[in-house]
Each structure stands twice: as C-alpha cells, then as structure tokens.
C-alpha cells in the first residue's frame, strides 16, 4: 500500500517533465564461478533531457557497467530502466538495436572506429544503418565538418589518424543520426591534455545545443564540465 502511494506521488510531481532516463532499483549481477558479483546495487536515478552528467568513482566501482545499462548494450538483472519512455526489458532485441542506432550516440575511450572504413565512411555508417542506403544528403560530411575534422583527411582510415582526429570522427559518428543521448566512457582517457580540452569543449557545445550528455570519468577537471556528478562506489550511488 505504502509503496503504491509513493510511486503515484512521484509520477504526480513530475507530470510536466518526464525524465529521459529513469532507473528504478536497478541491479546488475554477474554470475561467476566464484559466486555472484553485484556490479550495480539497487540504483535509482532520473536523468532529465538536456542534462550534462558526469559519473565518477574509483576503478571497479561500476561506472562502465552503469554506462552499458544506459546504452542498453546490456539489460539490468533486476529493476526497471526506461529510456525515452520505453522500458528496456520489455523491448525486443531488434528494438534495442534500433534504439542504440537512433536514440543514443556512443563515444568510447579508445574511439572504436571501424578499421576497414574511412573517416568519412565511419560517419556515414550509422546513416546507412538507419536509411539502408548511402548518404546522398551530405549530412555525414557536414557533421564531420562541424566537429572540426579536416576535410582532406576524410578518406583516411582510422589507423592513419591521430587520437584527437579519431575522437572527432567518433563524435561525428555518434551525432550523425541526431540522437537525444550522448554516452561517453572516458572520452579523453587516451588523449593528451590539450586535445582532451578540445574534445570536452566539443561535448559542452553539444550539451548547449540540447543533447543529453552522460560522461564517465575519474578526472575531476573533466567532471567539472558537467552540471551534475553522480558518485559511484561499490555499485552504489553515494552522491548525486
């Protein structure tokens, strides 16, 4: 009875603005031979549209696990996760794939560009996934330009690019399908200080243009770009 009431109250109070991401009592348990390991422990959390959130915590605290849930690369063991109003556990595999393609953009620490595709093709790729044909609108090139990538390098393979250039391509790839959410796992972790700042400026600019940016980092200076910091320790939220 009590539970019901609180839930109703919560919904009532947020009538006007529903959270873009809502975690209710989310746990992630890895089943290992040595026993179960709880990487996320009963996490409840709301993230509103156009927030800039940093997730911080010591190594092994569950930051990446958390980001994998938010990016629906993985589903919670228990609890409820809704993204853009849809309960992730009720979606089919294909629906999750389409949400990753259309609603979420990923920026990884090690860039994770497709090695066999050129810089331009890497950015064009999500458009092809979505529209099932090559880009004829010039969007891929435009987005690549907007992240400050040198046009002359478009035909280069990732292995021919510097870290900063690769991360710009990765951000362009994350942006090209105009997702609501940008997820970044230590986006500056493999970059020098100066390049890291350029990339962070880029992400801050995206937030200003209305994107919801969620960023995992253990660097306090980087976290200062965000407007809200979620502290994780041992799979629990210890500060928000």
């Amino acid at each position, binding site marked *: 009875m009590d539970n019901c009431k609180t839930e109703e109250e919560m919904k009532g109070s947020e009538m006007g603005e529903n959270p873009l991401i809502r975690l209710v009592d989310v746990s992630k348990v890895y089943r290992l031979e040595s026993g179960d390991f709880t990487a996320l422990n009963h996490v409840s959390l709301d993230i509103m549209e156009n927030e800039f959130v940093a997730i911080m915590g010591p190594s092994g605290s569950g930051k990446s696990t958390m980001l994998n849930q938010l990016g629906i690369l993985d589903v919670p063991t228990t609890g409820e996760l809704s993204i853009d109003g849809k309960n992730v556990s009720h979606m089919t595999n294909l629906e999750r794939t389409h*949400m990753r*393609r259309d609603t979420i953009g990923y920026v*990884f620490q090690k860039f994770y560009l*497709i090695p066999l595709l050129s810089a331009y093709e890497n950015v064009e790729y999500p458009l092809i996934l979505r529209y099932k044909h090559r880009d004829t609108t010039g969007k891929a090139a435009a987005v690549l330009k907007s992240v400050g990538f040198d046009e002359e390098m478009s035909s280069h393979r990732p292995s021919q690019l510097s870290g900063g250039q690769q991360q710009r391509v990765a951000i362009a790839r994350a942006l090209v399908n105009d997702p609501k959410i940008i997820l970044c796992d230590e986006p500056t972790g493999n970059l020098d200080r100066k390049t890291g700042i350029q990339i962070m400026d880029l992400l801050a600019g995206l937030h200003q243009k209305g994107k919801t940016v969620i960023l995992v980092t253990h660097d306090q200076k980087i976290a200062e770009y965000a407007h809200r910091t979620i502290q994780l320790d041992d799979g629990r939220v210890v500060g928000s």
Partner: protein
Amino acid sequence: MRDIFFDLSVRSVRLNFMRSLLASIGIVIGVVAISSMGMLGANMQLSVKQQLSIDVNTIMISSDVVRTSTTAGAPSTSQGVTKSQFNDIKNAAGTNVVIPIHRTNTQFTIGSTDGRGSIYGLEPDDIEKFLTIRVGEIPRGANDAVVGSNLATNFNLVVGTRIKIGPANTENRPTVRVSGILPARGFASDGVNTDNAIIVPDTWYTNQYGDKDVYDQVNVIVKDVDTIGAVETAIDEKVNRKTDVIRINDASGRLTSITQTLGTITTFILAIGGISLVVAAVSIFNVMMMSVNERVHEIGILLSIGTEKGEVRRMFLYEAFILGLIGAVVGGICSLVIGYSVVSAMIGNTTYFFMPDSILYVPEGMVIGIVVCIVSGLYPAWKASNMDPIDALRSE
C-alpha cells in the same frame, strides 16, 4: 548503390588476401573436379551412345504366322511379310528408311569348289543404306552380286569372280558376277548376317525364287534412336490390328543397359569430385571462422552502435560468397581447359564437349561451389551476429 556490408566484406577479403586465395583454391579444385568429372562422364555416355546407336537403330520385322509345310517333316518356315503389310509398315514408319529383304539358303559353286550359304535379295539402292562395301561397288548389272567377307576369304573371291548358284547337280545354273566385297560384320544386330552370304539384286532373286510380294524380313532404320519405341508402336498399331501377324524386334535393350551402367559410373566419378568439394567446404569454414575470430572487436563495434544481427550475418555471408565467386570463376575457366584435355586424352573424341549435356557441368559446378561456400559460411556468420557486444568490445 553498393551495400556497405558488401564493401566491408570485399575489404576484409582484400586485407587477408593470401588466406582468402588459399581457401578459394580449395573451391577451384572442387569446381574443376566436379565439372571435369561430370564432363568426362557425359562425353563418355554421348560417344558410346552414338557408337552403339548405329547398331541399335534398326527395327526388325518378320512374320508371326508360321507356314505349315505340306511335306511332313520339312521345317516350318515363316510365311513372310506381305506386300500390303509392307505398305502399312512404310506408312507407319514415316520418313524413316524401310528396307524389304528376301533371304534363303543356297548351294553354289565357285570354279570347281562347292559351297553353301545365305542369299539375300536387296534393292541395290538399299544396300548402301546400311552396308559399306570394302572392295568394288554395289551391283550395277542385273547379274552382279556383293559377297560377305568370310566367303571372299574362303573362296579367294575378287571383283569379277563368277559364282554358279544352286545345287551342284542342277543343269543350267544361273551365274552371278562379284561386283563388291563387304567387310566383316559379325553377328549383326539388324539380323542381316552377310559374312557367309551372297547379296543379289532383288529382281534377280525374285526371278529365281518367286515370292515377289512376300518379304522374309523388313528392316526399319530410325533416324533418331530415341524414337525407336514410338515407331515400333506405330507399326504395331497399324499392322497387328486384330491378331499379331508380324513380329517386331530391336536391340535397343542393349543400349539401355549400357547407358545405365555408364550413368552409374558417371555418378561415381562425380561423387569423387564431390569429396574434394567437402574438403573445400572445410577450408572455407576454417577461413570464415578465422575471419570472425579476428574481427570480434570490430563486430563488437558494429553491434554496439546499432547494426542489426541480420546485417552482421549478411556481411559474413557476403565474404563467403566472394570467396566462392572467386573460386567458381577461376574454377570454371580451369574446368574448360582441364575438362577438354581430360576428355580428349581419355575418350579421344571431343565432338560432344560443347553439347549442353556436357558443357552444362561447368556452370553447375560453379553454382555448387558458390553454394558450398555460402553453406560453409552460415555457422561463422551466425556466430558473429550472436556475439554479446560488450564481450566483443572487450576483446582486443
């Protein structure tokens, strides 16, 4: 507009060029084995069939009614095919060649030596339709005759030798002059055993023996051996209306059983070719598994940024298809060269090489090669598409 997954596959094949090439060589060998074995079998069948059908393209028709002799103890002889039956046969046979034949046994004398043999009465024009002349020519004059090879050897016959026909003690025996000598025919499958025979013009025969409108045998030589059954049925329906008055025979049963045997041999050698494709399938499977295992991380990237499982599967099936296509094209070209050499070396006759029954083994072998590749790629592709993106991303 090209599919990006196809591009990715092409690039992957190019990146691992040596490995892909080696796997394709397996397919090349498989395609060559299947195609050239198949062509060998087909050419063998076609050429044997051609050789045999010269022998088995003849329908032999004789009377089914036995003439009972007035003299007790005399052997009963066939009544013969009457003129009206012969005309019916001719109508039923259509454009096929119909040859009326008279035959009896006779004694004869050459110089001072007596002999015994068959004597055939044939229209001179008909002789060349199924017999070849080794020395001399077909009868031109009314008293000319062609003789069989045994007779010619045993009696030292040459063109111009004269033969007296009839029992030795008869007076005023008619004489024929040898105008040609036949090669050995052996036991002929058309019932005309000429080796110990004298062949005279039909007018000479009927003048001598009568029976002008009754034939001992009628042969129908069909142009296309495959129609022999139909022609026989037509003749049977036309002539054997109420009761069986004529007997219809042929030697095509022999052809059927030989072609069946050859078919079995072809299947067997095709199966040997098939084994090499199984080996090729294993090597393609191996290369595809290597490709999947080497690209786990890349697959992780593709899956995590929203590539559908089906699209990942497609990418790897394209790769298998490309390997198969390379192997099939190279194999197809090699098949033509190797198949031609094998056929000419083993059969010594390439007349039938480009006939559909033979040459179609090349595209068939190519298609089989590609299909084998795609089938070998099914499991690797399935494995790639069902990876967990997080696990795949972590592997580096």
